[in-house]
């Protein structure tokens, strides 16, 4: 089994070894959706790491003694396990595979020490019925092989945060059934980024795509640090039916030496729309393609690059099945009436006006 697989080598069937996020990126790439290039460090690498370091048994022992109702107990076990993983030496074959793929990515982008995003991609994450979202880590603007490897180990360690351990115990989810792969992806220099749903999350209306976006990296939107601009677009005719431009006072940007920081947005840019209509419609079209590909409503993270030309600047960073409305039964809103019954109903209707 491979330690590292390029996004172009994986698809949704690869989920057990590359996790949900990576599998979905590979799947989208296969469907012709523009995603930032990168590769997955497989769960096999994780196995190999804990096996060759001889810490697998130790981890199991610690977990078997956790008291899920005790915060100090969770904290203590978490700290122990994370330390074990972080300090385990990366086996040479894995290190070599990561190095080869990272160098290839650098060559492809014509940048030495290409800045990448390193994300965990759990095998139980993003499944339609178990939203483990937010339980694992993402590291932005990672540069150089050494840091890439260190952050990958940090991702693996993040499988054992106190919260994740507690959550799995509470949900009765075996610890060894949740495995982590790591995604290494070219960093998009996000001018604008955000989230979109292929339905209206307020009422489940499948004929809308709702796009929320703000300046800089998506973290500002996801974390709720800003009220994003919000657009509601008709999925069929691509009309922009609602357009709410908010004062976006904060943006997440990368600052050399400091990493990704929250930075104030200058006054005149705060109330400018964070994207133009052309970019918005491109996003909607991509959202439709992703929804069609998966055959279900989706929740999609996207970014618009600072430097590239339209449409090459529009990227999909993540996509996962929408979990709220998709699980509700689709009840009839028209009450099983014939065309004539509907006409009769309308003919009998009166419009109440304010007095």
């Amino acid at each position: 089994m491979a330690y590292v697989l390029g996004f172009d080598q994986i698809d949704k069937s690869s989920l057990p070894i590359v996790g949900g996020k990576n599998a979905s990126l590979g799947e989208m790439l296969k469907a012709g959706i523009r995603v930032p290039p990168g590769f997955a460090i497989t769960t096999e690498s994780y196995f190999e790491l804990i096996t060759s370091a001889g810490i697998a048994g130790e981890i199991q022992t610690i977990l078997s003694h956790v008291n899920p109702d005790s915060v100090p107990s969770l904290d203590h076990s978490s700290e122990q396990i994370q330390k074990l993983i972080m300090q385990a030496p990366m086996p040479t074959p894995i290190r070599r595979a990561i190095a080869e793929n990272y160098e290839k990515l650098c060559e492809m982008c014509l940048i030495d020490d290409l800045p990448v995003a390193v994300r965990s991609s759990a095998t139980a994450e993003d499944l339609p019925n178990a939203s483990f979202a937010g339980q694992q880590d993402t590291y932005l603007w990672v540069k150089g092989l050494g840091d890439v490897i260190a952050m990958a180990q940090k991702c693996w360690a993040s499988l054992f945060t106190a919260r994740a351990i507690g959550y799995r115990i509470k949900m009765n989810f075996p610890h060894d059934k949740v495995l982590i792969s790591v995604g290494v992806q070219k960093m998009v220099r996000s001018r604008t980024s955000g989230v979109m749903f292929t339905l209206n999350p307020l009422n489940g209306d499948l004929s809308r795509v709702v796009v929320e976006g703000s300046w800089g990296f998506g973290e500002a939107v996801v974390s709720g640090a800003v009220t994003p601009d919000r657009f509601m677009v008709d999925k069929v005719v691509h009309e922009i039916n609602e357009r709410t431009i908010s004062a976006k006072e904060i943006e997440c940007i990368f600052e050399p030496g400091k990493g990704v920081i929250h930075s104030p947005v200058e006054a005149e840019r705060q109330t400018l729309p964070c994207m133009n209509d052309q970019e918005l419609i491109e996003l909607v079209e991509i959202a439709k393609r992703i929804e069609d590909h998966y055959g279900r409503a989706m929740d999609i993270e996207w970014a618009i690059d600072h430097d590239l030309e339209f449409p090459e600047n529009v990227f999909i960073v993540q996509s996962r099945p929408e979990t709220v409305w998709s699980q509700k039964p689709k009840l009839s809103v028209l009450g099983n009436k014939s065309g004539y019954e509907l006409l009769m109903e309308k003919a009998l209707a009166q419009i109440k006006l304010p007095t």
Partner: protein
Amino acid sequence: MPEKNRFPYGREVQVPKEMEGWEEMYPAHRLFSAERQEWEDANFWYGDKIHAPDPMVPLDEVFHQAWQIALSQHTTRVFCIPPAQGIAHRMLGCYLYITAIAPPSGDVIQAKAEKFGARTFPVFEHYDELWDQWRTRQQGLGRELLALKVPSELPRFVPDFDSATTIPNAGPAQDLIEAFNNAVNIIYRGWQYHFSYLNVTYLSYLMFADVARKLFPGISESAIGKMVAGADVSMFRPEEELCRLARLAHTQPRVAAILKSDRIAARKIESLRELDEGRMWLESMEEIKDPWFYVSCGSGWFHYEGSWINKLDVPFSYIKGYVERLDRGERIERSLSTISDAREKLLGEYRKLIKNDDDRKSFEGAFKNTRTIYRYAEDHLFWVEHWFHTIWFEKMREFGRLFVKQGVLNDVEDFFMFNRLEIPALIEDLATSWALGENIPTLKWADKAAKRKKILEAAAKWSPPPALGVPPDVVAEPFTVMLWGVTTERVQDWLAGVSAKPGDTNELKGFASSAGVVEGKARVLKLLDEIVTLEQDDIMVVPNTNPAWAPVFSKIKAAVTDIGGITSHAAIVCREYGVPSVTGTGTATRTIKTGDWVKVDGDRGIVTIVKRANGHAEPEASIAQHEM
């Protein structure tokens, strides 16, 4: 000053002194009156900015007189829409006010409900055959109007006749009297026909729009319109005929050269007559002139708009443009298959979004009914408002010419200064004077016409109140909802005193007819003749459009109209060209001035004046204050 929660009653409104005598121009039963005060006060009247935005010319009011009866009767007595009653009219200060009458008692609603289903549902089953019957009947009626003989003069002596074998006939004075009475009978009858299926069509559309909104809560009016609108309807034929004539000309270099020259239509026709192929081309044009050049240069509601047949420069300027485009190898025709493929694709995509089986069936039922009948909304328009009205206006001008010839009026168009109930008196006065012998005076009708023109000018400068009386609790009348857009919001706007005075507002609301948001320089065109002033990428602001305007849509950045819903001609064509449009704003041509920088939001149906041509976006001082 009336209370805050209502508008002034009709009887409380003061008109400017210059308009004194306006009441004489309209029949007494169409005015507010002490005799009916209680009923009139109990109703909520609003200005019909859609069909009668300008002061009403007395004879052009005939259509309104006719539709008050015809529209209302089809709702109350023919198809019996259960809670809906008719639309009543009142003229006030030369402006038309209308009211949707409140629903009747429960037992009347019940009785109508039984009739409604029984009478309406079969129409959907047999619409195609019914439409054929309708068109044949309407064409017959138009031909009857066309064939009416109006004496060209009242001669000194009736023509010689063989008094040995024939008895004297009734003579030209009697012919004149009968011709006008017959013409009025025909126009009234035509307006009855106008509403044959329109009420049901609108109701069906409203039903379908409800269905679409229940299934897709955020769907726009424009998207709903795209699902049901037909592209292969009569209203598009005039433009298609122009394309055909242009293609014909394109095959004949000498004909094409003449048509492409910058001369007026009359000169071009003279030159064409000198060539064999030119005469053949003219013949082809003559063959299709009736009916396809009987298309108004405006809405069809006003005699002064003119039609292609009497403003040949209009179709000729289009033909010129089409021939030039053919020279450049461009396609000039709308592709019906492309349009219908696009509609099928769109429908298919919405259908796919319905996940409940029962709903899918209901949607199909609702769609099938509406799609079957919806074309009536566009087909009837050509055959009544354009073809039939053009015949009527031309016929009325024949009367006008006689009155000028007989020295009673100074100008043919002055004939329109008298309402249809006065004209029999005018005719009788002339007939009497002629019959009595030599040098018998008539009343001074020409002076009256002159005075009325002054009143209408004063009325145009006056800003009448947007509405009168107390807003109602409920409305059920489908036209009120569909055409005049009576909604909670609209009535609140009216109550808040939102009026339509030029220059007192920077935002106009209308139908979001074609999606997209653009800004640009406004070009206000009142009449089709003015399109020569239109520049590339202007935002065209017009009373409304019809196929006579079609070729301008590739030149403009957006269109804004006073009149028309989301399936109006402007809306349909804008969607085809991907040009944003807001239709049915009511007052755009008066509120917006040429040169203003405007933003057209075709997604939400809002037009904003960003910067006035005179340099500021602040409201100008209003010209006149009305009571409120």
